Every structure is written in structure tokens, then in C-alpha cells.
């Protein structure tokens, strides 16, 4: 029994020692360069006769989570053809990183898809990757009769561009992963 008491005492001493000794704090974590994040999408629509472009813009300056994104959309004119160009930015980095260039470099791994609930609104591809499949950074957008609805822009990473319908803008068989999916409420007048 003597042994046992001595051992229990020793155990307690060790425990108290280990519980009371100075604790290391973790070092400051290194804040990563979040180069891959896309915070901003801008779809600029230019019309030959109207000088000022119409802009559909989605901006989430703190990335996923945090504050909600700011979504703004101008009014489009009915029965009008616009030439559209997409700009993608990562504004978490200073200066802001231009993601559009990254997409251009990897054009064959990316494709934008345009979907709309507005009747007769048509978006056609104006660009192509090295295999001749569309990318969607440059487009032609034609509006139909006036109304209200949505335009959804989806960027797919590693889509199967040769699958049925994909080259003409049908996302159903595209596969891959969604890097961007934003929806704008748009009025056509």
C-alpha cells in the first residue's frame, strides 16, 4: 500500500505540473494569398449607337461567407443587339487580380453558359478556344420584346465541350464544376 500511495502522489505531482506548466500558443497563421478566389463578375454590353455600356455586375468583396454580395443590373433596350464581354476579378488581392486572363489562358478548360427567362433573349458565342469550341468571354446578346426576367451566367471548369449541345450553349451535358453561377434580375424596355 505504501508503494501505491507514493505512486498516486507522484502521479498527482506530474499532473499538476503538466497542467500548470507554460503553454505554447500557436504561431500566427500565415494568411494565404487567395489567388483563386473570384470576387467580381462584370458583364459589359455595348451597343453601336448608344455610347455608354450597360453593365451587369456581381461583387462579393470578402469572398464566400461574410457580407452578402452586391448585385446590380442596368436596364436593357428591347429588340437590340449588344456585344458582350466578361471581366472577372479577384479584389481580395491588391492590386486586384485579373482572372479573365487566367480563363483565356486555359480557354479549353472553361466555358460560360448564358440562361434567361426573358422571351427571345439570345446570347451567341463570339470566341473560340484552340479546338474551335466556344468560351463565352465575348458574346453577342440580342433582346426581344420588353419584359422582366433573369439572366444567369455560369462558368464551368473542365466541361465536356464535345458533349451533345454543349457547344451551342446547352449546359445539360456539360459536366465539370461550377466556378461561377450568378443571376441578375433584368428589365428590358
Amino acid at each position, binding site marked *: 500500500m505504501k508503494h501505491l500511495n507514493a505512486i498516486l502522489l507522484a502521479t498527482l505531482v506530474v*499532473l499538476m505540473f503538466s*497542467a500548470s506548466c507554460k503553454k505554447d*500558443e*500557436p504561431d500566427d497563421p500565415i494568411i494565404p494569398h487567395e489567388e*483563386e478566389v473570384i470576387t467580381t463578375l462584370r458583364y459589359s454590353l455595348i451597343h453601336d449607337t448608344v455610347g455608354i455600356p450597360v453593365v451587369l455586375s456581381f461583387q462579393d468583396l470578402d469572398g464566400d461567407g461574410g457580407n452578402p454580395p452586391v448585385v446590380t443590373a442596368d436596364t436593357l433596350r428591347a429588340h437590340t443587339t449588344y456585344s458582350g464581354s466578361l471581366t472577372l476579378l479577384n479584389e481580395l488581392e491588391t492590386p486586384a487580380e485579373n482572372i479573365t486572363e*487566367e480563363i483565356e489562358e486555359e480557354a479549353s478548360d472553361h466555358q460560360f453558359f448564358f440562361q434567361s427567362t426573358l422571351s427571345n433573349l439570345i446570347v451567341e458565342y463570339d470566341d473560340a478556344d484552340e479546338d474551335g469550341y466556344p468560351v463565352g468571354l465575348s458574346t453577342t446578346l440580342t433582346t426581344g420584346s420588353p419584359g422582366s426576367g433573369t439572366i444567369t451566367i455560369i462558368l464551368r471548369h473542365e466541361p465536356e465541350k464535345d458533349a451533345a449541345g454543349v457547344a451551342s450553349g446547352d449546359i445539360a451535358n456539360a459536366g465539370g464544376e461550377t466556378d461561377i*453561377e450568378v443571376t441578375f434580375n433584368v428589365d428590358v424596355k
Partner: protein
Amino acid sequence: MLNNKTLLFFAFFFLPAIAFSQNCNVNVSGYIWDASTGEPISDAHIYLKEARKGAVSDSAGFFRLSSVCPRNYHLSVSHIGCKTRELYMTMEADTTLHIVLDHDSRLLDQVTFISPGGKTTTAEKQSLNEKNIAENANENLANMLSSISGVRVIRNGNNISTPVVHGLYGNRLTILNNGVTQSGQQWGTDHSPEIDPWAASRITVIKGVGALEYQGNSLGSIILVEPRKIEKEPHMHGKGSYFFETNGNGHGLNGQLQQHYEKPALGWRAVGTLKKSGDNETPDYYLRNTGREEANIAVQLEKAFSERWTTDLYFSSYNTNIGVLRGSHIGNLTDLEEALTREVPFFTEEDFSYNIEAPYQKVNHHLIKFHSNYFITDNLWFDLTYSGQLNYRKEFDVRRSGRTEDPSLSLRQFSHFAEGRINRQFSKGWKVKSGFQFNRVDNINLPETGVLPLIPDYISYESGIFVLASKTKEKALFEFGGRYDYEDRRIAAISSSVPREIIRYDNSFHNLGAAGGFNYELIKSLSIAYNLGYASRNPEVNELYSNGLHQGVSGIEEGDPLLKQEQSIKNTFSLKGNIKNKLFFESMVYLQQINDYIFLNPTNEVRLTIRGAFPVFEYEQTDARLFGVDAAATYKILDHFNTVIKYSFIRGQDISNNLPLIYMPSNTIYAELNYQLPKIGKFENLELQVNNRYVFEQTYLLPNQDFTAPPPGYNLAGLKASAEKQSAKMRHNFFIKMDNLFNVAYRDYLNRQRYFADDLGFNLIIGVSSSF
């Protein structure tokens, strides 16, 4: 084959000469006994290697080898359903041996029925032995364990799986690798235990809260993975094993060597494993990017400094790359909905491939353990243990602009563990164990990802103390004990708001555990056991501070820094016995209440991000109740012909909200028919098995609790055959098995890959191992 006359001729001419020169007239005889029933074992094969002589035991368990030269011999004793025993002994004069074989595997498929050393705990225990491990070597640890009733696996495909015991998994389940709590990044369901089962000789599941002597969040059960002790044998012995499986074209290779020196008293063993497999296949298509590579090594040293003082050193390194089904990598909710409706997942290819590309996991785990044991008297001894573990986990996703080469999750965990124990045996059957444990864990995110980490960096200090006492009195065993742990955790997180800032948290928790139970042998063939345990568990770092997108489930997961500890009470009651040594049965009922049970709850919120809308999951607490039944029975139809049936039932309930608990295993029923033959030609101990597993549909779940309804129930049939062969110096084991015999297309509720693809189709596995 020599005929009798020739034999006589030889005997006439040579035997006297040999006898004269070497005096080879020693007679070795003996009896083979069954460890569990005490009955003699017939048809056991006894082989004296150096003499190249063999015998078979008769119905009284008796065998005889005559005219053996006096010298040291390696003796091997094998029998159907038993682990082959290798003995090394001196035969100088006529010798009678009494050899006991551990024969329980024939009774209840590895259930430690009445273990030879007597019961050591009142908690329910079931194990896999070396033979089970060898014949399932194509599986990882968790999949292997699923043959034990009450154990299931949550999987992310076939290669990433985590065990679930009585509905609890992850950090509620403690895994002990050679006596040390496995310290890994296994808090998620997509994390496999980083252990090579091939390096183990026994894997035991203790169901109950009774294992208070181990540190860890033992709210659930305990899994012990143990290597064999090095046998005190002066010659080098070894074993080489190989398997091939058709599904995934998998190959596995394992080599083991061991030796024990008498002077200095030192033993060593080295074990190495290599495994490689490629894309698995369902009955209809390949699962692209589901390959696996693994390379492991373990070294064990044992040294006795004196009769009273022994030490051992264990080192293991586990290294693996595991592919994740390419078609399960999902961008957002729209993609998920699309993937769910597809018959064949995206990215499926026509051809087989060994390639492992993103998404994949790369995991390295290194363990070093030093243990020393000192006997003050025969009834009082100390154990001291130190162990260090280093764990790296990198997860690679498909990323833009060459960033696929960079992991999107990269964690390093370094832990130090120290333990002191004292064991004392008193008269009148009392045994007392007590000790303390100290564990320091340093977990950091390596800054190579370019992604905001999902889990923050932290350092934790955990100190614990326990006392356990047990008493055996005639047919009863009583056990009770308690433990206390204090954890102090320092956390450094990065804010999710901009500008990014470092936020520090300090946590401290007091945890208490207590358990008691008894085991009572009502009559020789019937015993009951009851075990009651209380334990509390800290909220883990991921539960408190997770913040971000979990790609695999397409959801945003948010921790809650205000979570409280979980508190659990578990009751287990078991009944086991046999009727006329023909029908062996074992059943267990358990009821566990967990107050403040932490779980990931889908909220009604859908959060808009630039990547689309994601559902938000929050860690929340509720009161939960788990109830289940495990039952198993073996019936000996004839001496060499038996059937085994196992059934498990479990129901999980969120009692605060009166809802089913999500991710609870569905019920299963399993049956096998075994036929055993002592000998055919040169093959011994033949075993043939037909088995069938039916997994019920998980009907206890509301439609809005998951992305899709649970898949229907399924039925899988299998075949297995094994045999042994003794050559002059080597003993060979062969097995062949067929899983999913009818190539059934099915999906399992606990497999997260089920959202996207079917489970594995037919698989043929052949294996051979040779030991010397």
C-alpha cells in the same frame, strides 16, 4: 510413393545405422486440446520441420511421432478454424506434449467467447484474428471491421472509409494503434484511419464505455489494433503474402521478418506493405479516379534488461494516395442536383486506369512508441509509455491555372503522448490499474494552399488520470472505475471577413468518465453481462470553428464557438452461451443517451455566393438517443459443417425535436455456411464458405433531411475457399474469394459516393502467403 516392402527394406538397413550414430529413438507424442471447451481436437496436423515428419491427431486428440533424433525442433500445429501454432522446443528424451489451440473462431466467427485468460472486462469485445486480416488484406481497416456485428462504415467511395460502431464515428470513436490513441485528422467522415491492418495480428472492438483506461473521446467504443509479441525463438522467421483483386486490378504485397536473440535478450520484427489499385468498377461502368497507392513499414524491437524489466520500441510509417471519384467533385447545388439525376457520373471513361489525379488525398502518418515495463513484485508493476505521432494530410482539388498541384487542404499534426501506469493484483481476486496520461497536439495548416483554411491552427494539452478496479469472485467479475481529463486548447484562426485578421481563442474543458459492470456465469453454458458507462466529450475544433465551403457535400459548414460538452450514458446488456455445444449464441442490447449531441444540421438558409447558392449546415446540439441490438449465432449442423447468422439493428433519435438522426446505419442481416475438410490430396484444413449479406433500406429518415432519399436495400452474396499446404520448410496458405457474386448494382446509404454512382460490382480476390 514407397510401398511397404521398400520401407521395410530401408528400415532394416538404415535405421539401425542412424540409431547407432545419432540415437534417433526419441518418441514424441501428445494431445491437442481446444482452449475454449477443453475438449480434444481430432484431425489436427502436427509437423516436425527438421525431421520432416508429420502426424494427425485421432479422435482423442492423440498423436505420435516415433524415432525422432534428439535435437531442437520447430513444431507446427494446425487445425481447421484455428490459428496455426509454431513452437520451438528441445526433444532429448521421449516427450509428451499437451498443446492447446485457440479454437474460438469456429464458434462465433472470432467472437472471444470465453477467452483463455479469463474475462478481463465486462464490456463486450469482438476481434479479428490474423487469418481474418490476411484474408481481407485487400480491404482497409474500416472495411475489414465491418464483418463484426454492430460495426459499419461511412465511406467516401471504396477507399476512404471510417468505422461506425453502434452509430458513433469520427472523434467519438477511439482507435488505439499499438496501445496509443491514434492521433490523426479523422474528425470528418472523409478521413480514413491511418493504420496498416497487415501490421496487426489482432483487431478488437470493445463496445461500451468501459475502456476508461485510454485517453480519447471514448463516448463511443474503442478499436484496438495490436501487433503480435515477438516470439522467443532464436531463428529468423518470416512470411510473405500477396493478393490480387480483379476489381481495380489491385495488388498487395507484404513481407514480415522476425528473430529473437537469447544473448542479448533482444527481439526484432519488420513488416513492409505495398498496395496499388486502379479504377474500381460498378457492374456497368468504371469509377474514374478511384485508385489507391499505399506503402507502409513497421519495425518492432523488444528487449529484456532483466527478468523484471522489459522495454519495447515500435515505429511505423503509413503512406497513401487515395483517389476520389472525379464525378463526385461538385461545384454548387445546381451541379449537385444535376449529378444526382444522372445514371452514370460525369467524367466516366471507357477504359481502366491506374492514374490518380485531383481530387485525391495524400496522407502520411508516422508513429514512434517507446514502452517500458517494470515488475516490482509479481503482483505490482509499472508501465511507462512515450509516443510521438506526425500526421500529414493533403487534399487536392481540381483548381484553375496549374493550382491543382497545390493542395487545397494541408494539415500537419504533431503529437506527444506520455503515460504512466501502475498495475496491482491483490489477494481475493482484486485487480487495480491506475495511471496518468498527458498529450500535446500541435495542429497547423501549412501555408501552401492559397485557400482560407476550413479548420484553424491549434495547440492542445490534455492531461488525464484514471483508476480501474476489478474483482473476480467465483463465476462473477465486477468492474468499476473513473477517469478525469482536463484539456486546454489554444486556437489561432483567420477571420472570414476582410481585412483578414487573426483571432485567438482559449478553450478549457473538464471531462469526467465513470463505468461499472458485471459479468456473471449463470451456468457453464450461459453468461450475462451488464455495463453502464458515463462519459463527456469536448466539442472539437471543427465543430467550434469550421467556417467555409465543404466541396464534397456542396454545403457551407459553420461551427459554433458556444457549443457545450456532450454527455452520454450508455447501457449495454449481453447474453451469451451455448446449447449442447451445437448452438452458440450471443446477443447484445444497448441504449445510449447523449445530451447535447453535436451534429451538422442543414438549416433553411441558402447562401448566395459567386459560385451559386449553397445550403448552410450548422453544428448544433440536441439530445439524442441510440438504441440497438446485435445478435449472432452459430449452429453446428454436423461436425465439419456449420452456419453463422448475424443481425444488427439500430435506431437513432433526436429526442429534443422528435426527429430521426441523420447518418445512422441501416439494419443488416448476414449469414454464412461453412464446410470444413481436414485434407484433400496435399492440401490441409480446407474451408469453403457461402455467405450472404442483406442491408435493409434506411427507412427511418424524413425526406427533407438529405439531398436524396436513402437507396433501397440490397443483397450481396459471396464465396470463399481457403486451404493450407505444408512443404518441407514452408507453410503455405491459399485463399480465393468472390465478393458481390451476382454483380448486383447497388448503393449504400452510408457511402457518400452513392449520391453520384453505384457501389462496387463483382470482385475476385486470390491470395497466398508462405511462412518459414
